[in-house]
């Protein structure tokens, strides 16, 4: 394979293929596949499932609904909470051969600060991704859907750590670039996009909502065209590096996101179909670049000139 290594907000990555948060559990996958998984780890950085200040059990089932070329999920962020993560999961995730990015979410600025402070002193944590697709309990507004809320959150978290802060953008807004700009001005190091699109399904017999929690988020190839447009829109407005994702299943898909302005890409739902889908995307991307005579990834240059 060609050298596709890059620097992404200070992280040295062997290639531009990451995982989307919540789409790969390296600890559980190791139970199924053994240590071979580590030897053949398909991602250049591992993004954890979102952790919250307190443990969460997750949503009642059913949690999944298959759509044409897609999947609606309503998982509800089951996790062990910060303490459980630090004690039980972080030591195991340290075995991974790639940098660790920890995804966090809290219902308040104070909760986010608690999470960032808890991770700031941990050498095993290379970067922190802020999952802002949650309501602020005080304002009732979804943080990542409001430029002002996003900026206020970054303002409060930025002094707490020197680790890179990545903001995961929601696609459920009229102008994602406005949110990305607010994040950039308030000191974010990168943005990742897109999160799932809000979606629902009904039981074909009873016509009641199918998902236990009522509604969820759509992912998979069904959302790729939306993701590609949002990546291009945001890339045109901010100089931060972008991690692009949404329905990427092939090297050709990955190249489209990189050409649209992403510095790196993430494979998400495709990993459900094949745990090594990201390795295939990586090798196909390499082949695409070589067959097209593309020497450098546009986003890599972009990342290095903007910092």
């Amino acid at each position, binding site marked *: 394979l060609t050298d596709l290594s890059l620097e992404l907000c200070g992280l040295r990555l062997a290639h531009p293929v990451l995982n989307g948060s919540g789409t790969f559990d390296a600890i559980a996958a190791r139970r199924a596949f053994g240590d071979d998984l580590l030897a053949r780890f398909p991602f250049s950085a591992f993004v954890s499932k979102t952790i919250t200040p307190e443990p969460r059990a997750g949503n009642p*089932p059913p949690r999944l609904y298959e759509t044409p070329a897609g999947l609606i999920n309503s998982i509800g962020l089951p996790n062990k909470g910060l303490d459980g993560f630090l004690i039980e999961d972080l030591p195991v995730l340290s075995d991974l051969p790639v940098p660790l990015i920890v995804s966090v979410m809290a219902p308040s600025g104070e909760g986010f600060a608690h999470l960032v402070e808890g991770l700031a002193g941990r050498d095993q944590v290379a970067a922190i991704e802020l999952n802002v697709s949650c309501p602020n309990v005080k304002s009732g507004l979804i943080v990542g859907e409001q430029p002002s809320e996003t900026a206020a959150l970054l303002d409060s978290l930025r002094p707490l750590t020197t680790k890179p802060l990545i903001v995961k953008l929601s696609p459920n807004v009229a102008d994602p670039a406005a949110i990305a700009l607010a994040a950039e001005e308030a000191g974010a190091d990168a943005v990742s996009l897109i999160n799932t699109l809000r979606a629902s399904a009904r039981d074909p017999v009873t016509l009641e909502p199918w998902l236990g929690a009522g509604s969820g988020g759509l992912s998979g190839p069904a959302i790729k065209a939306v993701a590609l447009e949002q990546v291009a829109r945001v890339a045109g407005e901010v100089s931060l590096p972008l991690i692009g994702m949404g329905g990427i299943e092939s090297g050709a898909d990955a190249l489209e996101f990189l050409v649209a302005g992403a510095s790196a890409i993430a494979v998400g739902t495709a990993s*459900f179909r094949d745990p*090594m889908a990201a390795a295939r995307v990586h090798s196909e991307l390499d082949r695409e670049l070589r067959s097209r005579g593309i020497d450098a990834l546009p986003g890599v240059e972009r990342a290095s000139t903007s910092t």
Partner: protein
Amino acid sequence: VSERVLAPVGRRRCEVTANIASGGYRIFSALDEAGPPPRAGQFYMLTGERWGGAGGRPYLPRAFSVADAKPADGGVALDFLVEAVGPGTGALAALEPGEGLLITGPLGRPFSSPEEVVPGVAGAVLVGGGIGIAPLALLRRQLAASGVAQRVLLGFRDRRHSGGVEELFGCEEVRLASEDGHVGHRGYVTDLLSVLLAGDDAATAAVYACGPPAMLETVRELCAERRLGAELAMEAPMACGFGSCFGCAMPLASGGYMRLCVDGPVVRADEVETALVAGSGH
């Protein structure tokens, strides 16, 4: 708890070697050239090469317990039992010999030995319903190979919703039930279990069950009332099969959820709050 057999990392292509009708079901077979022999109760995530198509479904792989696994020339011959009820099962039921089948597995926690289910117990009672008879077929063979005495009870809804008994269980002594009475006892397979458990030798056997949620719930209740050790092979919709999607949440008796793909699909009957879980059995 018995050790799971680990899966090779990633998805691999197998060739479909046969696909035969058996009653209202089909049994399709594939030659796995790269994987280890599975343990009974483990499952595979299956994707046909012609997945997708008009309507964009099926998109995700489908979880199938392995019904039989035998050493074969060049690998392990895997048998799966399927009833075409949706886009995924429909595509699998239509597989033709020579076609490719993409598999990930074996996955999940297998059945335990009777001794592990109930210390000091030597025999086994296998209770299967409908398409859920599949993992019990391999369990029966693996237990028989270790000389474990068994009773096998299988039940079906009606003639259209039945199959696999002759091919997967051979001519061993199997007691049957059907709701329409087309074969065996007219009624539920759990009626047969009830009678069996009322007998003297009930306490000397471990119970293993797989079938629709209502059947499993009755087995769970019957065993709980009598304080009998039992294992249930359960089903829940899952996208990945290896612990990543968190879709296959099964409520635990102790609160919270387990992920059926990595903490199951075989569970101790007293681990789960109920076998009646919304979305399971679909």
